[in-house]
């Protein structure tokens, strides 16, 4: 009788229910508690600790990056200011040197003018003198020539 054999009317069969069922249920419940104690709790603790560690590390890193960025902007500002100041100083120095140059030039020009004027005046006076002398000498010579001519006659 195949149906009896398979469906377990008396002995064996595919659908042979007996104390295996409750015992297996108890066994699985026990296994649940054992695995909870040996597997799920410890592994969960380790995994969650690591997740916490990663999260806190990431948060710390983010905080540090923010600090670094803040410092960077500050330093950039400082650098900018320093650059501006340097430019100002350079500009001032350029202006100063230009002024000095101009002053020196003006002084030199005026001195040169003065000395040239003086020289011209000296030259003029000497020329006048020389002319006067020449004139007087010429007069003398003329007088002499006239005397001599007159004396010969």
């Amino acid at each position, binding site marked *: 009788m195949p149906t009896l054999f398979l469906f377990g009317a008396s002995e064996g069969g595919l659908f042979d*229910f007996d*104390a295996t069922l409750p015992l297996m249920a108890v066994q699985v419940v026990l296994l649940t508690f054992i695995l909870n104690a040996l597997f799920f709790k410890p592994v969960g603790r380790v995994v969650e600790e690591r997740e916490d560690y990663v999260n806190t590390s990431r948060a710390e890193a983010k905080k540090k990056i923010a600090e670094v960025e803040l410092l960077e902007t500050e330093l950039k500002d400082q650098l900018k200011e320093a650059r501006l100041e340097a430019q100002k100083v350079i500009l001032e120095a350029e202006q100063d040197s230009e002024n000095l140059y101009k002053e020196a030039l003006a002084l030199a020009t005026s001195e040169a003018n003065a000395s040239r004027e003086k020289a011209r005046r000296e030259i003029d006076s000497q020329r006048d003198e020389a002319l006067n002398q020449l004139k007087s000498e010429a007069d003398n010579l003329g007088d002499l020539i006239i005397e001599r001519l007159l004396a010969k006659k």
Partner: protein
Amino acid sequence: MGFLPFVFPFAELEVGQQLYWQIGNFRIHGQVFMTSWLLIGALLALVVIGTKKMERDPRGVQNLLEFLWDYIRDLARTQIGEKVYRDWMPFIGTLFLFIFVSNWGGALVPWKLIKLPSGELGAPTADINTTVALALLVSLSYFYAGLSNKGLRYFEYYVHPTPIMLPFKIVEDFTKPLSLSFRLFGNILADELVVAVLVFLVPLVLPVPVMFLGLFTSAIQALIFATLAAYYIGEAVEEHH
């Protein structure tokens, strides 16, 4: 399947033969417990080895265990929801691991080499007692989950969204364990039978792809059982608005 013992009366294929152990007035299927103890022992050994020295940088078996833990957590969390999945994760995980180990153990270990006076060793999940036990545990769990989370308001679920659903929801309470247990039982038993018949008919090459298919089915069945169990529990603790 009823014709099998008659088509192959001389085959080494034994369907529905049990090795009985007598305990007081009760009889139990010895071969189911023998294989389940061996496989649970292997599972526990793996767990003990893997958790012996756990570190923040996982090494060796710890990686595997953490992968499994993560997988089970994702499964439980997506099906049950963020609020209570922690309470049910060990149960869902145990179901998954026990069924997976049973299915694969039944398919991978050459049990046929060990002769028993009656019946034969195989996957514990190929015995209807095991699958019904598991399915009834799931039923108890989702009732317990619903009642402990929502009290008597759990029964609102039966008239949600309309009271017309009441008979269907009541029928569901019976069909859920029935479908859970028979799906697992049928798949694993059919897989074992197909492999056995093929090995008997064509002992070379041909059974190998079927064996691989069997491994695939075994893993899928463990996943399906655990996912459905988690889904039923999630359904029971879900808040309706």
